[in-house]
């Protein structure tokens, strides 16, 4: 009985490119992304980076919000275990992400839409390949329709 | 057909004036896009309007300009929440919606022929500015008796409308007393709370109406002083603030008992307030 007006997305399938929101921790992964750039390593331009202090700062609601706002996939990256600037933020995050991914899968959201990894400040190459993989998988999945809110 | 009451008049921000040293109070001068909108927006001092920013929502603010200032629509806003923070960040030329005017103005029919005591505190001087400018307008001044204004703030830097205040203090048809809690070295006027100034001035309650706007704690003590000075509850006029959404008496959150602040207020006499629950 809601009066919501659904307006179909205008994007034609031919021109559709996946949008990926990446939450990168300030100390390792953001520096890794920076290194990828400085080293002129090519990776898909489909990614929008949000810098966060630590992967432990990320509330899964951020990821839901990104999907709701039209992201086709979300990537979260922090420091490798043992390297966290805050000692254990990434380890606490790892448990959260484990369960969160299971939760999304359980309700039928493709797990590839929400991906997690570790990238250190020296791994520009790894960052680029991870992004490539995430974008490729998002492209295969097609546009995110399940959680996106149509205005 | 009647205008959709939820549809704001389109307007633009013309100018932003920083009002205080803390820079968290700014006055926004707006201009309607459409002359028809300007013509329809007929208000009196004491009324308020909802300002609207797409995506940020709406919030109600007292109108700080006087209808006698043709073409000048002013709102003074303190940065406190989400909406006000956004408002403080927009640049001249930005689009802004204005919905109103809303609420009841100060009771100008009752004020006519009377002396006026205007008491303001801190940031709550906006509609009082509107009232003073309105009264001092040459076309209106003769309708009212003597006017005495007392305005207090924590520090000299927190007094709003300083150019207006200085201009008013030069006039002989209004008495303007300024007071601060914490003076700086250049301060030459009153020091202390508003009530202390009132007690030295001992304004007469005879044939006088008092209009009081300010923070709750100031109101509380000012009311005690006014009673001592002989002001009856019916002669004390207050303006309330409330969380509002629709502004037209429908959404149901600004009520105090059976009265809606948005449509029955925001201006109430102390006598009226005494019949209402203390839910404000």
């Amino acid at each position, binding site marked *: 009985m*809601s009066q*919501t007006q659904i307006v179909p997305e205008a994007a034609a399938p031919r021109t559709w490119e996946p949008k990926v929101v990446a939450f990168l921790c300030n100390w390792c992964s953001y520096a890794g992304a920076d290194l990828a750039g400085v080293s002129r390593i090519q990776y898909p331009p489909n990614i929008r980076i949000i810098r966060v202090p630590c992967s432990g700062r990320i*509330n*899964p*609601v951020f990821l*839901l*919000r990104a999907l*709701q706002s039209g992201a086709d996939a979300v*990537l979260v990256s922090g420091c490798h*275990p*043992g390297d966290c600037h805050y000692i*254990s933020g990434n*380890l*606490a995050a*790892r*448990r*959260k*992400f*484990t*369960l*969160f*991914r*299971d*939760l*999304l*899968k*359980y*309700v*039928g*959201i*493709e*797990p590839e839409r929400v*991906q*997690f*990894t*570790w990238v250190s400040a020296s791994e520009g190459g*790894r960052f680029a*390949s*991870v992004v*490539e*993989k*995430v974008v490729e998988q998002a492209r295969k999945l097609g546009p995110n329709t*399940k*959680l*996106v*809110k149509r205005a | 057909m009647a205008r959709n009451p939820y549809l704001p008049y389109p307007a633009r921000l013309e100018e932003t004036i920083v009002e205080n040293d803390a820079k968290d109070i700014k006055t926004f001068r707006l201009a309607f896009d459409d002359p028809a909108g300007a013509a329809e927006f007929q208000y009196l001092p004491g009324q308020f309007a909802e300002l609207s920013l797409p995506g940020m929502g709406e919030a109600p603010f007292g109108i700080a300009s006087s209808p006698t200032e043709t073409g000048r629509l002013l709102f003074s806003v303190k940065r406190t*929440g*989400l909406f006000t923070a956004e408002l403080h960040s927009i640049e001249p030329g930005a689009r802004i919606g204005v919905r109103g005017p809303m609420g009841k103005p100060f009771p100008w029919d009752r004020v006519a022929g009377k002396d006026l005591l205007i008491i303001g505190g801190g940031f709550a001087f906006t509609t009082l500015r509107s009232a003073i400018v309105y009264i001092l307008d040459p076309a209106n001044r003769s309708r009212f008796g003597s006017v005495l204004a007392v305005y207090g703030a924590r520090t000299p830097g927190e007094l709003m409308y300083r150019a207006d205040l200085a201009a008013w203090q030069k006039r002989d048809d209004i008495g303007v007393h300024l007071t601060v809690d914490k003076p700086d070295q250049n301060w030459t006027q009153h020091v202390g709370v508003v009530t202390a100034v009132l007690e030295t001035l001992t304004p007469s309650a005879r044939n006088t109406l008092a209009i009081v706007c300010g923070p709750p704690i100031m109101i509380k003590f000012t009311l005690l002083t006014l009673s001592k000075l002989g002001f009856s509850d019916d002669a004390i006029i207050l303006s309330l603030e409330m969380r509002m959404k629709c502004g037209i008496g429908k959404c149901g959150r600004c009520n105090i008992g059976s009265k809606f602040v948005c449509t029955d207020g925001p201006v109430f006499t102390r006598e009226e307030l005494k019949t209402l629950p203390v839910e404000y």
Partner: protein
Amino acid sequence: MTASHEIETRLRETAERLLGEKKVDLFLGHEKASLPLRTTPLFLTVAADAARLAWNPFCSPNLAVYLPRLFRAPADAREAKTAPPRPTVGVVLKGCDARSVVALIQEHQLPRDKLVLVGIACPGMVDARKAERVLGLHEALGAGEDAHGNIRAVVEDGTEVTLRREQVLADVCLECRAPTPSICDIVLGAAVEPREAHVARRQAEELESRPADARWAHFQQMMSKCIRCNACRQACPMCYCKDCLLDQTRPRWVGAGTDFSDVAIYHLARAFHMAGRCTACGACARACPMGLDVRLLVRKLNLEVEDLYGYRPGEAVDATPPLSAFAMDDPQEFLTEP
């Protein structure tokens, strides 16, 4: 199983004694409600009122939800000065309610020394809506329990209808692994046999066996009835946050209406916050005015928590909740590798 009326008598005596001897300032229990098949919470302060306490198959409310607000820390120094001394509170707890109290103590929301916990070994509570569904167009005007634990309802024309206990017990009770409360100061009634835990797992597995789109369709069909009244959150003893993320407006994380994406985020976020914390009392599902089984998501998460970290919420006061902890070698197979 000890008969309900025997327990009720002893419960009244216990409350009367605790209040009479000033061992507690307040005693929380259940009382007959104005409609049958239900009870309503009772806040007792006078020993003489103890006879109002009820113990019957309709005492489903989880009284633990009322406890954190009685012990909320003052917001600031001024509030601390005027705050009354913290009360000592006696409270009636079923197995599930006791788990909630354990979890709340673990999370530092309740002072153990200010609580007198009166546990009752619980044979399961009636789901009023289930019973009403069984009665169909008839309405119970009164209800009680017979000697076999079955429910006797009196309908409009005065006839008595017997409802088999298992048929009308709440779903959550049919899979209760700890019906006899732990950590209580006083336990009334003989211990009750735990139920099989397989139900939750079987249902989760059944849903998991369906393709992703079918799972989404199931979730959507179920949750699209949600009217966003917040009853599930408000009834939950573990939802004690002073400012819920889902209410925040700066920024607003989830829209206020019933657009399905907002509904979905509301339930996903809430379930996630309950992972490893939900004590499976079923208050959320019972509170839902739309009759949704709000437990769907968190049940699955709790199974995951148990499998991955060997933890079940609400079992031990000194245990560390798994999402407040970590291990260097926690599983991480899910990570994306280039």
